[in-house]
């Protein structure tokens, strides 16, 4: 048995410790918002956060998540009644088309803004370069990220609790 904490809840799963985190999240925990795209860390569809940093769960063994905090798309919103500002911006900019890559895109973008509330265009490009969108909504994603950055959501949050910089 392996115990992992996903979105604040610790769960025990009966899998080989070398099983990629992706399949544990999807099949054992039934959190299907995280997607399989390539299986070799090339496309970013499987991106989740490990202690706030974006990782490719398709190549991360579940054993690497033991004792860590895993956040998936289902845990991105601050509460059931409120979306994360990036999710709101994604709707405002009508970003998704097929939508399949969007969980991974949002987890990468959220990790970026958490670490760097006011990224430059180049910094956005670098942070998002690991996430492919075959519908090609790069321009809309970039615009949505900049909307949230300029709204200073993260600056305000950092001031409020002093822990985020």
């Amino acid at each position, binding site marked *: 048995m392996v115990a992992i904490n996903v979105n604040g809840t610790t769960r025990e799963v009966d899998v080989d410790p070398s099983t990629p985190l992706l399949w544990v999240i999807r099949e054992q925990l039934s959190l299907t918002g995280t*997607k399989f*795209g390539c299986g070799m860390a090339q496309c970013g569809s499987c991106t989740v956060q490990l202690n706030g940093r974006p990782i490719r769960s398709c190549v991360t063994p579940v054993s690497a998540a033991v004792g860590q905090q895993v956040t998936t798309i289902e845990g991105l919103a601050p509460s059931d009644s409120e*979306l994360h500002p990036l999710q709101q911006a994604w709707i405002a900019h*009508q970003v998704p088309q097929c939508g399949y890559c969007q969980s991974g895109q949002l987890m990468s973008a959220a990790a970026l803004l958490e670490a760097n509330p006011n990224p430059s265009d180049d910094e956005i490009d670098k942070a998002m370069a690991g996430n492919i969108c*075959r*519908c090609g909504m790069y321009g809309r994603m970039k615009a949505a990220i900049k909307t949230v950055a300029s709204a200073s959501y993260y600056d305000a949050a950092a001031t409020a609790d002093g822990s985020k910089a």
Partner: protein
Amino acid sequence: MNKWTRRGLLTTGVIFGGGLVLGIAIRPGNRTPGLAPLVTDDGETLVHTWVKLDTDNRITVIVPHSEMGQGVGTALSQMLADELDADWNLVSFEEAPAIEEFANHSLGQGFLLPGVELPAMIAPSVEGVLIKTAQALDLQITGGSMSIRATGQYGMRVAGAAVRELLVESAAEAWNVPVSEVSASKSYLAHEASGRRAPYSEFASAAAEKTPSLAPRLKTPDQFTVMGTHVERHDIPAKVDGSALFAMDVQVPGMLYATVRRAPTFGGNLAKLDDKAARGVRGVKDVISLPADEIGGTMSSFAAPATVAVVADSYWSAKQGLDKLELEWSSPDDVKRSSDDMFAQFDRDISQAANRQADIRSGDVAGAISGAAAVVKADYQVPFLAHTCMEPQNATVSVTDSGCEVWVGCQNPLGFRSAIADALGMDSDAVVVNNHFMGGGFGRRAIADCAVQAALLSQKMRKPVQVVWSREEDVRQDYYRPAIQSRFSGALDENGNLLAWENTYVNKHEPAEAPLIPYSVDSLDIGHVESPTHVPFGAWRSVDHSQHGFFTESFIDEVAIAAGQDPYQYRMDRLKDKPRHRAVLKKAAEAADWGTPLGSGRGRGISLQESFGSLVAQVVEVSLVNGETQVDRVVAAIDAGVAVSPDGLTAQIESGIIYGLTAALYGEITIEDGAVAESNFHDYQALRMPKAPIIETHIINSDAPIGGAGEPGTPGIAPALANAVFDASGVRVRRLPMSRPEVKMQLEDWSASAA
């Protein structure tokens, strides 16, 4: 279809102008079995096949197309809601189930009668023929950029208008006032003189008793209130919080997982299988071989090679098992061919021109060429391309003694139902297809190969089975955009006028008009020869336009340059009788500041493409840095008649451009020894955010019939890019992709000489 009755789905003679099935009343206690689940509670009346009106005055539009990113449900609902004068806030939509009643024959009309505007008077008789055709072919297809211009135009709008008329008539009767005095607005009916006002729902039952008009009056564009306005897509909120359900997200109780490997060589077979080690992997339940079979493609049928499947209690166990199989494949000698062999074959077959078929021929091409002041000649080649939808191919199927249930995301639910029924030896009625959001379609998800595998495995395992392909399988077992070659000669007089245009290419598919050009030219000869390969092919976003758009719009540029003229002006001069084409080209050129200097190492290229009923002009700006092509900006102008959903149209153009740009920059499936050499995104790359250009889309609303949106953005980007690279460097790219080593070497040489 004798099961259709007055109270059933379709009233006799009520088929009109492409309205797919102009049904009128499905009510509790009197239901067509296949539609019964759509009437989910007793308070509802299905007034019309296309619209369900419940007692809360809510309207549900039933959409016979699949969602693969294009926002089809929202746009089609806009069309119906507008004609119905519905309150948009009360409108939602559901995808139609895969049953015969939803075979979309107006799609058949669009395919069979391309470009023909049917007078309303004859539409019913044409439709009467086509509905039978569509049902016989099991067409429930989303493709060909047809949803809005066929289903929307002939189905949704007519349906909305017909229901509105029935409601108005019903209210007039109930209130005992003339029909002309009843008005409809925002889902309410009103009679001004008496001050009566009531919601649509109050008259739903009465309206359902009536026979709808064969020719309801449609609005003119100035009367639109919902069409042409910005509305948010209904499917987007679920796509930002992970709750949108794709087929791979389906979990059926007791379900097993499987992954597969097919013979890598098309036409190959299984020679040896040792599964001892695979069966030893924790969780593996079985290893099953499926024989080679015929699988119907979108444009032809192909032999699906033999398949080995590992079935397990999780995908990862199945994958581990698959990797431990010891497999040997046989491949017949005649398919052990390479891409280079095939291009050599194309070159030979074009030169021999045996059995050349003309698409169009006028004037005296040979005479014009022999008497020309200059003759421009060029050959172009494009490679095979995979679709690489973000969601790898997958399907979940549960076969039981009583029937079969399927969970899939596909572009053709009825076709899938038929293919699965055939494979299982069942009647189609025993197969239920649940269609889900598609993680990309692009033409790939019209083919049922993976779903048939899941059905056969479920039948053998006696349990529900979800088959998930690895990305490697997805890249190597596609139905590819065909590689083809095209050869041109252009004859010029001493003033650079285009006297003749001669073009021969290999392997014509669809649409037939893809190689044609809009430019006026005295003598014209466009034709093709057959030069088949063993590589399975299928529809790929914009189909033959993806190849011919590159060829023709590159060659007209070469002709303009040879004539010593500006490529934009040269095109404009040959579009004198085509005001829509001129307007689109002019819009893109002006918005992109055509003609203003860009500086060293930078260039602009232009293209114009008519496809799927829409006109798109593109201007691309590039920078060349050390042999690398950076696309800085794309300015697009589109005339799709009327933009039903302007932001949706803009998003589709952006998407089509990026999809085409990925292919132009990187896309190449290479055949070696009869099999695909590439395997995943590291060697079959996709454009990523750092390389994505700024895209500006300009919409022109003309009075032309509504055109397509999903595909028209794709064909024009490759030629505009190649033309821009030429403008910047003088290097003419005639074989895609741009990442080919010889292109890079030429551009590096240019960089070195320019430095």
